[in-house]
């Protein structure tokens, strides 16, 4: 085989790979639309219009691990305490913060030292002291512990929680008032459900007062807008489609609900990974399959959680490095499942997708660019082919964003600002060439520097909610 044939061969591989991705995009849009259409019908029935018997819901423990969250922690706890849910407890775990996170909480809320008994179902780092109090009629427990990372903090919260379900969320998140109801609903409706993920929306430029969302402006800055596009596509289309495929491998660490008994069974969160959210969900999937149990892991599209995203490149890079390292670790820990029919759809579909279309996608794409360059130098550049590819990618990118917007409008029955929507849709035309390449660069960088970054959290700087 000479070099010319090799280049032509790889050209065809690129077309084939791109075709697979485009077909997959189409399939997930179809799958998500079917799911959302059925869900919409249920949604109009749910949230009972007449009866307000809120006792029908199961009490939950909300676990909030906090490390250096002084700027936002009080607002966050106040916001949680006002949620429209009958019974829940808030467990705030101060993971050895070096700022005044603990002091702010202790000074704002009326808390006393507690002798709360709990079962150490999962091994954790040392707990220094536990405080207890009440905020807006709900129990608030504040745990001060030695720094051990987010996973360890969550495991402490699981040990301390007294309810059968727990929600793991980030300290900077603000929930929509009915978010917990929406998140618990799949568990009530189908007893096989062991975990439910929420819909993460971006909270930059959110105006919040006394823990309540007053208004939201369209943020400025390309980086944030592209992240809005990305989150919308992921949570309205991609994650929802995985519900249909029964192969959900990720529930966002910012807002997810779990059955406590199932998480304890698998040993809680792993502390030797920085992608603890995805790793736990994969482990839950594999464990249930090994034990031949019927189970469901869902993403609930209307359980809204607002979170801050980085608006500076350095923070964005750190976050995306962490995500990619987490992905590498999660796939590596469970590599036995790749193409393994023993693990059913998870092994043959979910984990394969995340390996080849998420983990290695940056490498494959960059390889593709190299092949194109070689083809160009060798005079083998097929302009027709690449023109079609180029146009298809732009049209697909545009359509996916447009579909996500339409589906969001359909689900929320709320019109968004026309100019904002136009801005988002037009910018999505350039997404494959600007934002995607930026993400590819960061992913490859993360892979190269894996050993350096594998244990680094690299926190992003938090801003107060009403910052412009």
């Amino acid at each position, binding site marked *: 085989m000479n070099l010319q044939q090799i280049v032509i061969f790889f050209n065809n591989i690129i077309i084939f790979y791109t075709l697979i991705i485009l077909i997959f995009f189409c399939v997930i849009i179809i799958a998500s639309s079917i799911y959302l259409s059925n869900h919409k019908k249920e949604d109009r*029935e749910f949230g009972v*219009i007449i009866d307000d018997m809120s006792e029908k819901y199961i009490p939950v423990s909300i676990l909030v691990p906090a490390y250096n969250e002084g700027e936002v922690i009080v607002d966050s706890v106040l916001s949680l305490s006002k949620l429209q849910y009958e019974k829940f407890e808030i467990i705030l775990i101060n993971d050895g913060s070096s700022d005044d996170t603990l002091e702010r909480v202790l000074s704002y809320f009326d808390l006393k030292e*507690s002798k709360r008994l709990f079962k150490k179902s999962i091994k954790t780092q040392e707990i220094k002291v536990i405080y207890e109090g009440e905020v807006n009629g709900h129990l608030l427990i504040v745990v001060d512990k030695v720094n051990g990372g987010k996973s360890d903090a969550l495991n402490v919260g699981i040990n301390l929680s007294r309810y059968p379900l727990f929600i793991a969320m980030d300290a900077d998140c603000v929930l929509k008032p009915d978010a917990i109801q929406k998140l618990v609903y799949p568990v009530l409706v189908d007893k096989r459900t062991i975990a439910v993920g929420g819909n993460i929306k971006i909270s930059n430029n959110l105006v919040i007062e006394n823990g309540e969302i007053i208004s939201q402006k369209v943020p400025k800055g390309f980086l944030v807008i592209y992240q809005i596009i990305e989150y919308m596509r992921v949570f309205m289309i991609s994650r929802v489609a995985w519900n249909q495929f029964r192969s959900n491998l990720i529930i966002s660490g910012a807002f997810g609900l779990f059955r406590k008994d199932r998480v304890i069974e698998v040993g809680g969160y792993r502390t030797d990974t920085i992608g603890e959210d995805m790793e736990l969900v994969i482990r839950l999937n594999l464990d249930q399959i090994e034990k031949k149990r019927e189970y469901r892991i869902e993403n609930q599209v209307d359980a809204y959680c607002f979170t801050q995203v980085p608006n500076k490149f350095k923070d964005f890079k750190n976050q995306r490095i962490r995500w990619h390292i987490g992905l590498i670790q999660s796939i590596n820990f469970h590599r036995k499942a790749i193409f393994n029919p023993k693990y059913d759809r998870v092994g043959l579909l979910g984990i394969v997708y995340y390996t080849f279309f998420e983990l290695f996608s940056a490498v494959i794409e960059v390889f593709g660019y190299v092949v194109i360059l070689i083809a160009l130098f060798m005079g083998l550049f097929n302009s027709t082919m690449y023109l079609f590819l180029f146009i298809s990618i732009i049209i*697909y990118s545009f359509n996916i964003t447009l579909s996500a917007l339409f589906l969001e409008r359909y689900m929320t029955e709320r019109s968004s600002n026309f100019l904002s929507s136009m801005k988002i849709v037009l910018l999505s035309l350039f997404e494959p060439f600007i934002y995607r390449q930026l993400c590819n660069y960061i992913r490859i960088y993360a892979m190269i520097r894996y050993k350096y970054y594998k244990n680094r959290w690299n926190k992003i700087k938090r801003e107060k909610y009403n910052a412009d």
Partner: protein
Amino acid sequence: MSNIILFWYDLPFLIKTFVIVTIFCLYIILCIQIYSYLETLKLKRQVKKEQVARQKYVASINTLINAIIEGESCNQNSYQEMSELLIKNKYFEIVFIKEFVKSIKKYSDPTNNMSYVTRKKLIDYAKEINLYKIVLKLENTFGIYNTLALLSIIRDDNSLFFIEKNEENFRNSKNLYLGYYVMLGYARLGCLDKFKNLFDYILNQREISSDEMYLGLLKNFEGSVIEWQSESLVRGNLNHKIIAIQYFMQLGSNNFVSFSYDELDRLTSKKEYVDTEYVYFVYLIRYLEKCDNNYKEEQLVDKLNKNGKYVFVSILESLS
């Protein structure tokens, strides 16, 4: 045109496949976008129609409801108009049902005799006009949970068949949300046997459920459940006992004080425990704190310490 056809003919097979598949996929995506857009418009129109109907009729509906409550004879014309609209106008029906059951719910305090009398007048009127049939007709609009909730509020025995049908659906699907609304239907219709049956069925499964749910249902039962709960407390399994002791604690009934002390002795003399027994212990203590004026924690702590039951001492300390 012929150039395009020639151009197409000359393209490699892979590119032709690529183009055809891409166009097909884009066509599907476009259909989905159009469908979701049209559905959004349709839903908005429905909401708007309901709002218009509400603005137009809510005043006259409330006048009718007040007349029923006051026991006045309604204006014959408005009664006629309402009856016709109930048959013909779907949005009027929705508004009527919502307003009507809202007023029934306002008079839901079982301890207040005036509330009971007023509620009975409204329920009798609902039976007279066969409101349950209109609710069932709108099942697709309201959805199954709302329909069950509405029927339970209207309290018409004729709707029992619908609740029974959904009990069967629940037993097949194990959808706890549905099971809850079926139980609520039985509770508000006062069907004790069916209610007990389903209550025990769900309670015994008890994988993921909430005590408040059961207590709320007991509170909503149209009739007395005291005898049944007394039986459950004395002879039931642990799950029954936990619910029953909380029920009597909420009632503030001190009939089971000595029984509770006996249960404490029995519990604390065991050698091994399951988690649920610790939960039961906590509720026994809470019951005694509320209903026994002579309860002294120190005496109980001394007794437990003497018997070496330190885990219960720790539980007591954490409670206080």
